[in-house]
């Protein structure tokens, strides 16, 4: 998917992240789970995890999650455009799904851009990185927390050593 190809070079370019890479180590990951109170639509809990307490303001975090929820709601909205797409697809025996990009996919691209932008502006300066939920099967928003060097004596708090961005 396009998301990943874009993501890797961005990491190499971004200055703050370079600093992260040199000095930081992956401390832990926090997972924001899905909120199923509205059914099976894709929506994430806005509950602020305790591990982020000292790292980022609650309002910023909630803003991010709410915006993501809005994007997903828009993607899964059943309305005029989705009906049109569905009926057209049915009429053509669903062949058009092979040819054109669905509305959902377009919105997923927007989401990945948004996450990238959020990471650059808000999260990376605070030593956090958001992972696009699509890479985790839309189950969780994974937030990787990096510790700065110096105070890393207690860094490996039981987290897996895999998948760190420190390159």
């Amino acid at each position, binding site marked *: 998917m396009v998301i990943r190809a874009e*993501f890797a070079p961005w990491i190499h370019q971004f200055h703050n992240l370079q600093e992260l890479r040199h000095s930081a180590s992956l401390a832990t990951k926090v997972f924001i789970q899905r909120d199923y109170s509205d059914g099976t639509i894709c929506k994430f809990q806005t509950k602020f995890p305790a591990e982020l307490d000292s790292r980022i303001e609650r309002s910023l975090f909630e803003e991010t999650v709410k915006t993501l929820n809005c994007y997903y709601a828009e993607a899964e909205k059943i309305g005029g455009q989705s009906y049109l797409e569905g009926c057209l697809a049915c009429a053509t025996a669903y062949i058009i799904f092979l040819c054109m990009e669905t509305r959902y996919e377009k919105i997923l691209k927007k989401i990945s851009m948004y996450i990238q932008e959020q990471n650059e502006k808000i999260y990376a300066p605070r030593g956090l990185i958001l992972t696009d939920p699509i890479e985790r099967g839309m189950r969780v928003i994974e937030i990787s927390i990096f510790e700065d060097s110096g105070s890393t004596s207690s860094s490996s708090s039981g987290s897996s050593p895999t998948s760190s961005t420190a390159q």
Partner: protein
Amino acid sequence: MMKNREYQQIDPQALATPTPTPPPRPLPDHKPKRARRKWEVFPGKNRFYCDGRIIVARQSGVLPLTLGLILLTSGLFFVFDCPFLVRHLTSCIPAIGGVLFVFVIISLFQTSFTDPGILPRATPEEAADIEKQIDNPTGSSSSYRPPPRTKEVIINQQVVKLKYCFTCKIFRPPRTSHCSLCDNCVERFDHHCPWVGNCVGKRNYRFFYTFIVSLSFLTAFIFGCVTTHLALRSQGGNGLVFALQASPARYPFIFDLVVCFFSVWSILGLSGFHTYLVAANLTTNEDIKGSWSGKSGNEDVGNPYSYNSMIKNCCSVLCGPMPPSLIDRRGFVPSDDSVQTSPVEIELPAAKNDINMCTHGTKGLLETASRSPLLTSSCPQAKPQAAPAVLEPLPEITPSPALEPPKIAGGRQSTNTSHKHHSHHRSKGKQASHHTHKTANSSPRPHHSHSSRRKDSKNRDPKFSSLR
């Protein structure tokens, strides 16, 4: 001496140097090889063709039989009936038949070859995080193993229990079920259909519905045409029997008639059943288990996913937005030593091995090493599964229908009677439907090949466990 020094330095220094060509690596099996696609390491029991573009269940069931019957019946129709009917009636007949036939074949292939909505398995970190959350509340007693883990959520003022899937290490989202035949959790799991050789779930339910509806129209159409053909022929001569005997195409007639006769009833019934499901926004799985019918004595249950409007339900199920595939079959596996239980992995660390070395000391290393065998053990089918998929020629579907059916008892079986007895048994429990199913199944049918076309695999034993 040298060796000693190297060994000591593994932790801080040697680890910190990212070596693109690592010769004496402490970790085993790190060979630089071509980047593999995720479908090659997919842990479920699926087969992939065309470099991951096409996905089928491991046992393709009786898909070739389905295809063969459709092709044969339609072929005989076009060859023997169409010319006569075009002469005597109208030339629209082959046109209509052609359109229906095309719809049937295309939707069959789409149902069979589309990812039904498979949920990728949890990454190790996620699984650990969930374990932590589960273990904490249950707390003290370490000796007593708690019952299967469930989590309750409230959806639309209704309490819904989410079960923990031990294979995929996730709490299954609502309406998700684990298919034991494919060894995957599938979203909005309807059933595993041996006739199309795949699970029917969120992403391919509309294809499946199109398939059975168009197939019922096609079989009804062919049946009607063949009957008309015979009627027209017997008008001129001395009756039906004479017409049959005189015609060179009597065997095709008989074949078509019999096949279509049985399939019309069964497939039409099945379409009716699924139309009901669509209108009520239910899945076959939920209907069979009676999740929302209040059979467990709880008066307050109703389907929390229904929009309480038939039209809206139909539109949301059939014309809703097409969700993307979550398993990203054609993405590349990050070049990494750790075994992927989940095919969707974070792609940031292009040089993941180096990160492994850089970021943590011996402790982290040992953790990784100890985790890898755990991961491999949790998906024992991954490697052996991938190999046959790669070796097989494309796009071959290799089943052995004679051998497979006994194992493939999906939930389809009770559906087939359900659709007949639906109005009667819906309020009854699973037992009743099981019973009626068995009764229906035991009645002998002259044409097993076709009666079994009614999505009930001719063999017994509805394995409800496959719907877990």
